[in-house]
């Protein structure tokens, strides 16, 4: 539990310093490691509120990072379930 709280704080902190694509890669790796890794949703929402704008390059959507994180975490969980040997 402590690890997951630590990861939540770490993800929230690095969102100010890492390029967004590095952050998403980090989320993907952690989602593969931990089951139901929903911790990055709050930092992603934070990021979208702080930096987001509905621009053409982001499908006119401000909350693209949150949507991305939700899709990543959900998809990773489905893939994990489909695998016979995971843990």
């Amino acid at each position: 539990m402590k690890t997951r709280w630590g990861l939540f704080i770490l993800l929230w902190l690095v969102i100010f310093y890492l390029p967004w694509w590095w952050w998403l890669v980090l989320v993907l790796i952690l989602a593969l490691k931990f089951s139901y890794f929903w911790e990055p949703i709050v930092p992603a929402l934070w990021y979208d509120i702080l930096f987001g704008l509905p621009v053409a390059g982001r499908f006119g959507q401000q909350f693209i990072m949150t949507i991305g994180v939700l899709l990543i975490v959900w998809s990773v969980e489905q893939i994990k379930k489909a695998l016979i040997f995971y843990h």
Partner: protein
Amino acid sequence: MKMNYRRADERRSPRRFGWSLVILILFLSGIVFWGAKLSTWFYGPVALVSRPFLAVGKVTVDLATDLKQFVRFKKSLVAENQKLKLENLRLKNIWQSNQTISQENLELKKIVGLNSRSEKPLLLAVTARPIITPHDILIVSLGDDQSRLIKVGDLVTTGGGQVLLGRVAEIYRSSAKIKLFTSFGDQVIVAIGPKSIPAIAKGLGSGNFSLSLPRGTEIAVGDSVFANSYRNLLLGSVGAIEAKSSDPYIRVLFRLPINLYELKWVEIYEN
């Protein structure tokens, strides 16, 4: 003989998959439809808490840039110094001739009765810039009552009001978001080179633009690109021209004449 079968994995049941998908779709719909309200309510506290972290990031990047300059080899510094001296001399000459032209321009405008740009810009410090912000968005800090002095759509420039960057997109009490014209997918009407060839430039992100012109158009690498729908401000200079024998069009690539990653100040002009 009694047989033991492996227990069915609850996590793999299709029913569970269906429910998680429904919850995901509901959550996504909530964000898409009510996201704007969420942003309006929470931007203030989020920006307030984030300010010290952004300041630390900015100071670190500035220090790293200075350190990089410091550890450069002495030899290369001497050579660069010589090169810069020559460049400085050349630019001084150009500046002097430009001064004469701009003076003449002002006088002519006065005679014809056209308004010349004389308003003072609002100088604002950049608190967050790309790569940290996505898709060419800048965050600038606003001082007391400065949020009343700007409005959405105002022009954002740099380099003494000569280089066009973008427009003010959102204004809050202590900060504002600026959308650069180089944002991916954004379009701006431009004029290229001494013949002012008209075209539409598309933002490619990270300070880059591209545009396409018919093959045979007289342009060259280094030609200046001006945004003629925005007071004819400078947008960049042509960096590369791509031509394919099978394509009747050429692709022109150009970029902003400043380094976005080192931008510290911007000037806001009323649109």
